[in-house]
Structures are given as structure tokens and as C-alpha cells.
């Protein structure tokens, strides 16, 4: 657990990322108010969770993930983006991936130009975007746009299929890749 000031700072940074696509007033109602940070579980990342009410015991982890901190930078968790798209009724700053792209992304790879099937503006090169599996509209990861939407379309038109369009920051396969196998439940 971290102190309140640190939590407030990360929350502000997270709102800053999301505010590039949404008005602050739109998203504030979609994000729970109480945040906790858990850092001692996985190598290299902290998980930021939101809890709905105070819990009267000392715990290591609680609530639902809203963000991940990697090298001191916070990124929205896929589930948070999913909730914002649902709560605002508007998907922004995201790309839909083709089936090969979904598979590759869930294995920790970047999303290639050829795999971008749909673009949800606005975003610019360097912005954080959600990566969506169109088969069920699930956000499967978050990434950093390496190209503007217009550049992606141009790269597609020019057949630069193998150029990376979105750098993989975090995807739903991450836990499975980093975990040491432990005995499965009997």
C-alpha cells in the first residue's frame, strides 16, 4: 500500500491520460473514487485497484484493477477502458484488431499495421490507446500509438503491413506469461 499523496498523484496522471480523449467530467463519474496500489506481487509492475468501500482488515490486494504502474508510469488497465467505453457509450482512442492481431497482442507482441481493422479517434502518435477484440468488443490490452490514425491508414495503403502501429504495454496474457507455475487446484 502506498501513501495518499502518491495515490492522488497517480490518479491525477491516469485522469490526464484519459482526458486526452474524453472530457474530465465525462470520465470522472465512470471511475471509482478509492484507489489502492499493490506493488510487491509481480516483478516490475504495481497494480492500482479501485475499491467500492473501506475494508476493515489489513489486506495485500483488493478491488478491481484500474491501472498498472510500469517504471513509475501509470497506464489504464484494460478493464477500466472497457468500463469507460461502456459508461460513456462512446469508444475513443482505440483500435480494433483482426483475429491474427488479437492473438499476437495477447502473446505480448505489438500490433502491426495489417492487423488494425478499425480506428477510434482521437489519438496521436505517442498516446495511450485501447486494443479491442471485435469478436466480443473486449479490451484485450493497452498500448502506445506509434503512428497517428492518418499515418496508419497511409501505411496500410502503401502495404507497409509489418510496421508496428501500436506498441504493446500490457495485455491480458501478461499474468500468464510472468507467473511461475504453481500447483493447480485439485
Amino acid at each position, binding site marked *: 500500500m502506498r501513501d495518499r499523496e502518491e495515490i492522488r498523484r497517480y490518479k491525477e496522471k491516469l485522469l490526464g491520460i484519459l482526458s486526452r480523449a474524453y472530457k474530465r467530467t465525462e470520465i470522472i463519474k465512470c471511475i471509482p473514487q478509492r484507489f489502492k496500489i499493490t506493488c510487491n506481487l509481480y516483478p516490475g509492475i504495481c497494480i492500482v485497484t479501485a475499491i467500492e468501500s473501506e475494508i476493515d482488515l489489513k489486506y495485500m490486494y483488493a478491488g478491481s484493477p484500474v491501472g498498472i504502474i510500469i517504471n513509475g508510469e501509470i497506464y489504464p488497465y484494460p478493464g477500466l477502458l472497457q468500463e469507460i467505453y461502456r459508461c460513456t457509450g462512446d469508444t475513443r482512442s482505440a483500435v480494433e484488431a483482426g483475429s491474427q492481431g488479437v492473438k499476437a497482442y495477447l502473446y505480448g507482441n505489438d500490433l502491426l499495421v495489417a492487423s488494425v481493422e478499425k480506428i477510434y479517434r482521437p489519438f496521436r502518435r505517442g498516446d495511450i490507446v485501447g486494443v479491442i477484440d471485435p469478436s466480443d468488443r473486449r479490451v*484485450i490490452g493497452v498500448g502506445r500509438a506509434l503512428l497517428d490514425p492518418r499515418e496508419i491508414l497511409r501505411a496500410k495503403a502503401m502495404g507497409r503491413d509489418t510496421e508496428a502501429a501500436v506498441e504493446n504495454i500490457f495485455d491480458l496474457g501478461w499474468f500468464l506469461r510472468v507467473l511461475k507455475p504453481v500447483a493447480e*487446484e*485439485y
Partner: protein
Amino acid sequence: MPAIASLKEILEDIYVEPGEDARRLARRYGYLEYMVERYIRILGSSAEDLLEAIEDQSILKPVARCNNLRIDCKRLEERLRNLGFEVRRLEWSREAIEILRTPGSPTPGSTHEYLKGYYYLHRDSSPLIPPLNMDLGVGDSVLDTCAAPGGKTTYIAQLTGDKGLVVANDISLDRIRSLVSNIARMGFKSIAVTRGDARRIKEVVGRKFNRILVDAPCSAEGYIMIDPGRKRRTDQKSLAALVRRQIEILASAIEILEPGGILVYSTCSIAPEENEYVVSRVLDIYDDEIFLREPSLSIWSRGIEDLWIKRISPEVRRCIRTWPHIHKTGGSFTCVIGRR
């Protein structure tokens, strides 16, 4: 905490001397002799059926327990079929999809549906029995004292509609990592994870609960088919030590069970020492404060009263057993304890 029997006393209670038949079968199947002697005493001529069933790992059919808070179970079933899995729904759990055959790729633990948290993958159906016998309702507060890697914890969260509080405790950090990854993957928000020794659970959680699950660390004697090394791993002295720890864990949990509350004790073992004996010893300790309840879901075998082990309570007939050779699952034990 009340005084727990000593290791010596437990060993005296549970000790069994192998006979000639047990020695012969133990040699043939590669077991410690005392283990087979117990099977003969419990099952008679069916003991060899058990030993044969354990030789066949394919009797364990994995179960994809659908996360119905995220996906409609019929839709998941359809998606798994489209991926090439042969599946069927279990009648006694509306969330359970048994996997009868898997395609070469993907494996059940690497589908996109799995990564998206649409299901938890159990080795077989037995682990679903304890949560289903906790009489859970939406919004309940529940403690799971030995929770990792989280199969039963996440099922409890589902059965309480993800609206109550599920406190999931474990002692091992490695196993807690697995637990948290399953909770995060499946998107549950009502689970709080604590790290502590279940033998001192009161100090860890500091409050009482109305529903408690004690899925005790055990010898895994019910799942030898996936780890044949267990045929020779636990001698009677080591078993006595395990049993003592199980009694300590169970007694510690009873201390924080509210009056009128329900505690489910379960193991993944067919050893009566870890099951009927542990429960009987705890019934002795808490005398008229606790009793064994009739399980709400019981389509399996029952606990065994007639054993060579000393101090077995007749109440253990209310407990549930699954047997590999009868139910075609892993061997397990579930007992529902009520507090007056």
C-alpha cells in the same frame, strides 16, 4: 485456542499395520504398504478398482467453470465448441462445462476466452462441491482460509454475485501471485487478499465470519493420478504431522465462525486420517458448540464411520466423499460444519 492433540497421540490413533494382501498390492502398484492397507479396510474387494482407476489419468475431465458475471454460459459453451473442444454441461452446477476432448491447440488454459476471464479452469469437477455446499447468498461475507490459487475463491465470489466481501487468505506469496492473477483476470471486485498463517487466522483477519471455507493443505492422496510420486511420499509419521496442522487450521477457523454460521471443511485427499478423523477431533474439542450439517448438495458417497482409527464420530456420515473409481473424478472430501 484449545489444546490440540500431540503428534504422538495422533500417530497412535491413526496407525495401521499392513497385512499380506496390502503388501502384495502395494508392490504391484508402487505404493507405501500402509496406504493400500487402508484402502482394503475401507473398500474391501473394491480396493483394487480404486488402484486401477488411479492408474488412469484420463479419468480426470477438466472443467471450465463459466464466469457468468462476464459471459452467458451457453455462449461460452458455443465458443469452446467452435474452437474444437468437445464439451458437456454438468447437471449439478449451472456454471460447469466439462471438457471431454481438447483440440491440439489451443489448450484449455490458453484460449482467448480464458485470458478474458470468461472461465476458471479446474482439473476436474470435485473442487466445485465445497462452495456449492456453503449455502451462499448474494452479498454474503465469506472467508476462504487457504485460498490460492483461487478456484474456490472465485466461485464463491460468483455465488455471492460479486457483491459481498470474500476474504481470500494464503500463506505463500508465490501462490498468492496466482490467486491475484486469477482474481484480476476474471474481473472480481469483491475479493480482498490477505497473507497469513491459517493456523492463526483470527490474528490475520481480526473479525468473525458467517461463512468460512477451510480447503486444507493436504497430502493430495485423491489426485495421485497426476502426481504418482505421492504413492510413496507421505509415510504415517508425515501424515500425522499433516493431520495435526489440519486440526489446527480447522480449529482456528471455528474460533471465528459466528453463531449460526456455516464452515465447510474440504481436502483433495481420500485419506480418512485427513478427513473423518480431523473433523471428529474438532467435534471433540468444540463438543456442543458445533455439529455436522446435512449437505445441501450431495450426490456422491458419504463419510465413513466404521474405521480402524480411534475417536471417529458417527456424525461423519453426513460428509461427502468422491472416489476416483466410483465418480470418475479426483478423490475429495467435503464436510459442512454448523455453529450453534
